[in-house]
């Protein structure tokens, strides 16, 4: 137990006596190990422990939050006192007692943590480095980074909840640079899962080497991308970042409650092409964005966001529920004790369709095929988005033609959903980090290949 039940009780009781409608303690202790490798050497190994407590008070629809590294009772009481100082004169409460009932929930499965000593991890790096370099003499640098962390959390709240979860995470980043004369190009992959080193052992290192090297070499020789409106196919896996950024964020109640989302009043309406169904699921075994409970202590669930084009549900946390009336979905998430929770995505994907890549290429005729997407961003108010293409090819007469570089896709979230006219049968997930109001959190994006009838492509030709 990270914080004694009696201390939690007294702090929460004090907050309620100051008129708060709700009080919650989030206690965290996370151990982290990072290994950095490049130029064929282990550059540094770093380890540490993040530990702290966040206190949240809710008065009506207003959230007050404070955090500290200290777990001393007097420091926690002082935080509550300072938070409530602005508002307690307008509210009166009474001293109550709480019986914390440990929450029982179904744990998601994750790959075994497995204790592995540093030499074995270092051996994996050296093997992957060699595999990449032997693919081509044009490879000028291989940079690898392993992050492994184990987050232990506890939550107490004034509704009598006590919940705890152990969350092991592991992720490998591989960055490859290819150079030919003055031209340079890079490629990157970053597989990650809930779990331990057994995930790294399960990876096909040769396939990672092949995929990143190929992408770097293709980009090195690619031609500038033509600019303009055109039909586009976005491949599976990380291609789902577009749905995540351009639509997923607009379905979070943090956007909906401010009415800044174009979808805030569209529940039950058709917002996408009938071929599109989309899900945000916290319960998938092993996946990077899965949680047994969210950071407010609610068991996670599979949430159907869009079904056959119709908006079914929003992604909702406790405060979102208070402000909008939508049902909580076990989606209250935060990076660490340093952040108040907010409604956030978990594993978000466009669900499986029926089309094959060949069907899509034939229907496109001439256009762009995005084999691998980079990151992007979205203006949450207007839904305008911008995404880069890491590996792309022009499509000519229904066939994949030459490679292009420097392409960007831009559009509006609400419009893009209606422009998806074909959904593939090759659903795949990819790990990523999502940054928003409650910090940077592990999320999975996913989709089968999709075809957009038309989108603006930025480029240099």
């Amino acid at each position: 137990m990270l914080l004694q039940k009696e201390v939690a009780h007294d702090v929460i009781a004090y907050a309620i006596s100051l008129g708060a409608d709700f009080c919650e303690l989030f206690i965290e202790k996370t151990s982290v190990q990072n290994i950095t490798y490049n130029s064929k050497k282990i550059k540094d190994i770093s380890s540490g422990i993040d530990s702290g407590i966040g206190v949240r008070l809710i008065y009506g629809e207003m959230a007050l939050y404070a955090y500290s590294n200290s777990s001393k009772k007097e420091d926690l009481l002082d935080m509550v006192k300072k938070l409530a100082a602005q508002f307690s004169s307008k509210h009166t409460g009474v001293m109550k007692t709480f019986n914390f009932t440990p929450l029982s929930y179904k744990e998601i499965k994750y790959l075994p943590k497995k204790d592995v000593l540093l030499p074995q991890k270092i051996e994996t790096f050296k093997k992957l480095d060699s595999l990449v370099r032997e693919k081509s003499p044009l490879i000028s640098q291989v940079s690898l980074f392993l992050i492994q962390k184990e987050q232990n959390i506890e939550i107490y709240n004034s509704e009598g909840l006590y919940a705890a979860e152990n969350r092991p995470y592991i992720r490998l980043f591989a960055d490859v640079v290819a150079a030919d004369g003055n031209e340079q190009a890079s490629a990157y992959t970053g597989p990650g899962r809930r779990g331990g080193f057994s995930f790294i052992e399960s990876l096909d290192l040769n396939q990672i080497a092949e995929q990143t090297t190929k992408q770097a070499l293709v980009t090195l020789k690619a031609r500038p991308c033509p600019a303009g409106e055109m039909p586009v196919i976005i491949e599976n896996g990380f291609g789902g970042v577009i749905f995540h950024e351009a639509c997923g964020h607009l379905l979070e109640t943090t956007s909906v409650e401010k009415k800044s989302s174009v979808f805030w009043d569209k529940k039950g309406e058709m917002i996408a092409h009938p071929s599109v169904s989309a899900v945000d699921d916290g319960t998938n075994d092993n996946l990077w964005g899965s949680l047994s409970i969210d950071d407010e202590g609610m068991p996670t669930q599979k949430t159907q966001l869009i079904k056959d084009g119709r908006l079914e549900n929003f992604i909702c946390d406790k405060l979102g529920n208070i402000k909008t009336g939508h049902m909580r979905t076990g989606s209250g998430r935060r990076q660490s004790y340093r952040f108040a929770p907010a409604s956030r995505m978990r594993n978000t994907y466009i669900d499986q369709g029926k089309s094959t890549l060949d069907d899509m290429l034939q229907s496109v005729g001439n256009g762009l095929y995005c084999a691998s997407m980079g990151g992007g961003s979205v203006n949450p108010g207007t839904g305008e988005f911008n995404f880069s293409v890491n590996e792309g090819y022009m499509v000519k007469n229904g066939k994949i033609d030459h490679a292009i570089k420097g392409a960007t896709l831009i559009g509006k979230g609400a419009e893009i959903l209606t422009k998806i006219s074909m959904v593939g049968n090759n659903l795949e997930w990819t790990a990523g980090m999502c940054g928003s109001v409650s910090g940077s959190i592990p999320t999975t994006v996913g989709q089968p290949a999709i075809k957009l009838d038309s989108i603006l492509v930025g480029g240099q030709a």
Partner: protein
Amino acid sequence: MKNIIKKTIDHAMNSGADSCDIIVSSGEAMSLSAQDGRLDQYKLSKTAILGLRVIKNKRIGLSYSESFDEDALKFATKAAIENAEFSDINENESISIKNSSDSIFNDSALKDTSSNEEKIEFALKLESEIKKRDSRVTATPYNGLSISNNRSFYMNSLGTYAEQGHGSLSAYTSALLKDGDKTSMHYASLLGRDLKHLDINQCIEETLEHSINWLQAKPVPSGKYEVIFNTDTLSDLLGVFSNYFSAKDAIEKTNPWETKMGQSVAIENFTMIDSPFYKDAFTHDYIDSEGVLRKDLTLIDNGVLKSFYHNTATAKHFGVTTTGHAHRGAKSSLNVSSTNWLIKPGKHTDSEVKDGTYLEVIDVMGLHSGGDNISGEFSFGASGYLCKDGKRIQPVKEITIAGNFNKLLFGITRMGADLKHNNSMGTFSPLIRFSDLYVAGK
């Protein structure tokens, strides 16, 4: 704090480290946001983190702790020494800075004396004024104020000790406008060290000016355009390609200008300086993360690449002296970083820079994902205005601007004689007109 740091250094040395140093970042912060005429969120924090770097047998080990009790710090020391045992030999990295006296700097510290009530009132006024001035404002999705007071500490096993205070207060707002089926949004912020010196009207006017104009915005036809970035977007663009100035990236072969030292990388009269305590800069940064006292550094002199950013390790590799740009956070390894950027003024008047037709870029999207700092290619979304002879003739959005950083600084056609600064007062540049950037629009 100094005693805790010294005790941890002594413990590391007694545990077998050959040398070590510590960085501590501590701070207090308060933030609040206001929505619909009332306080929406209020946040307080107080944290500290200690980062230890040990060198043992020429190998580096790192650890950090957010707990300052004796057991936690002993655990962190043990972890750093164990980590060093498994790192490869690093011939360049050492702890070598020995200053004769302690260095303590406070002139970037917070000076605010306003009460919480005044801060809340400020945020509420930001929102109410925005809504009052235009009935098409449907929301101010981002509206609030944050204040932070941080202190960083450095000590090494040679006795070098430094402390710096950094504080800031920022207020921000946004306006989401809707007119029929057209929407637009813009965000603006203010930065200072004292609430009473923040100009609330400036923030409101900037937010409304662009969000109102962009309701009528449309893409321009695709093609090549001459472009003037405002200082914020220019600073952001340079930031994406900051690895071009990094000696560490040059060693690791991820700096495309690795072999360009002494060669031409820009037009002849382009000079760019890193200026740690430039007189008008918001932050004066006197000492780097190895305890080296900083000084001005000319990066590009009249178009010729003159220096990379160096710490003592990269300097040893290249056989030069450190430029005082070491950067290490409590949780991270030794690197280099910039301070303030100063681009020297040119000879043209602003009117001459704005002569003829050009695109004025006010806002960019997706810079970090749209910029490839290895190939130099960039392509990102932009909003701004199509201008003629200094007059905005059409609001523009839903376009992309693309180019290659390796060619960008050779494409400068005119540079103004007056310096402008970005919002965070860390980049100072004249108006610069770039030619031949590719725009994708309608």
